[in-house]
């Protein structure tokens, strides 16, 4: 099984080409470059380094969010289009779980997070059981205070994984918390995490896990109108 995996959920770009659990080639960039510009050339380069053509790939795995809306959309659009147009298997993995997977040993809750600004984070909580990451708190959009309260109630040691946010650090005083510096995503871990995930059955319907309404939708939902499904029409 040959797998192409990539993540552009946040600032960095990570691509991995694997065969049966072994990484054949990889690409990583943490430069502040536009993912829309760099992603396909990075995929092309990684495949070349692995001596493979895109048509040799059996499976595409992508970090499906949450994260930067645009960043996640770039990866998801690329993954779903490649999988669709080449008729390959597609899998989506949580972008939070992806950075949680950097922690391979910890007794307690592994809490990956991304800054969602204005005292909010995208976060989840996982625990390691026989080398598998099991969800404890679902990935979501949390007010930092609420996340801390929920973690406090679980009364477990916590390992935060994410780009440091001062507010989160300050408010974790009552937690038995550590802060890992291993928060850079590595697409090779997508391949590992994807093993326990079922392939997407409807590629057309595959979309990012934004975990957050747009402000316009949020305000509109408050008006009490019912949410329909026919907002887009083929004419």
């Amino acid at each position, binding site marked *: 099984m040959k797998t192409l995996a990539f993540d552009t959920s946040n600032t960095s770009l990570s691509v991995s080409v694997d065969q049966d659990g072994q990484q054949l080639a990889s690409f990583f960039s943490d430069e502040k470059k536009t993912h*829309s*510009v760099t992603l396909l*050339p990075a995929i092309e380069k990684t495949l070349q380094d692995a001596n493979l053509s895109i048509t040799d790939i059996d499976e595409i795995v992508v970090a499906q969010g949450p994260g930067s809306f645009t960043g996640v959309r770039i990866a998801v*659009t*690329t993954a779903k289009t490649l999988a669709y147009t080449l008729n390959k298997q597609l899998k989506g993995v949580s972008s939070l779980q992806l950075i949680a997977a950097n922690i391979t040993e910890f007794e307690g809750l592994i809490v990956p997070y991304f800054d969602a600004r204005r005292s909010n984070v995208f976060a989840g909580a996982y625990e390691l059981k026989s080398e598998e990451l099991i969800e404890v708190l679902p990935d979501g959009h949390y007010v930092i205070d609420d996340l801390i309260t929920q973690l406090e109630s679980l009364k477990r040691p916590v390992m935060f994984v994410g780009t440091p946010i001062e507010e989160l650090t300050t408010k974790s005083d009552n937690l038995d918390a550590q802060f890992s510096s291993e928060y850079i995503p590595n697409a090779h871990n997508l391949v590992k995490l994807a093993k326990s995930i079922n392939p997407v059955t409807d590629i057309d319907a595959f979309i990012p896990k934004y975990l957050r309404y747009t402000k316009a939708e949020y305000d509109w939902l408050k008006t009490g109108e019912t949410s329909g499904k026919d907002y887009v029409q*083929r004419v």
Partner: protein
Amino acid sequence: MKDTIILAFESSCDETSVAVIKNGKEILSNIIATQIKSHQRFGGVVPEVASRHHVEQVTACIQLALDEAKVSYDDLDAVAVTYGPGLVGSLLIGIMAAKSVAFAHNLPLIKVNHLSGHIYAANLVAELEYPFMALIVSGGHTEIVMVNNPGEFERLGDTRDDAVGEAFDKVGRVIGLPYPAGKQIDEMAQLGNDTFDFPRAMLKEDNLDFSFSGLKSAFINTMHHADQIGEELDKNDLATSFQECVVDILTEKTFRALENHKVKQLVVAGGVAANSGLKKRFEEEIIKRKLDLELIVPPLRLCGDNAAMIGAAAQIEYDQGNFAGLDLNADPSLDFE
């Protein structure tokens, strides 16, 4: 000569469209998924919502376009995509999808200026003769352009503020019409009279530029003033007065441009080209001025945003060997050189 078949993508605003075009002339398919109903909830296009819808639609649109055209990837010669101007988040979906298809099937990639697309929609319905002139009138653009040779554009006039279609939508909102308001204002304008005589901006100025924000303000002030004194204004008269004013401005500047540029064809493109008042006045003006001029207004489906026009414009780039790399990015404020 061998046929050229291009798979084209357009996603610059709130339509996801994929088309298959033969030789830049023949539409084999032109799938359009419109988000109008979604954005009507908000009274206008919300960029993040638009981007999300594009991701939902894009692969299904590709499949429909290929099916309807009865072609497979082996039949394709190139993949084309709008790279600007437009909403950056929206543009990126078409771009990433087009790049992925081009990469996966080892096909050349062609980047297309959305405005060039609007102009070359005319190539799908007429035989173009260079040089010709184009008036682009849409929700995002109001431009007079000379097309001297294939793909060679010279902008003669532009809006200084609002695009003309934007003015229709804003005025429509003030009189309580749903977004987009152009079609309804056009219908109401058939029923009223030009009683308000709104200001015709920049007509006396010696240039070919437009301004519509003053008209919009005059319209809103008229409404507010009537509200304050409890007067009920005739909405059809308001619509007629607005549309007459817009048509006067567009006609005056376009025909002034035609006085100084010898062309045999005038293309009117973009969503506002569907306006019946505009088309009628242009036809009358050509007769009145005894011009030997062919007026080309593509049908409604090709005036709004669609990928067929992108495929038509892409053929010119294909013929000239202009191809893009996999590092193609969106250029939201792309213009003519």
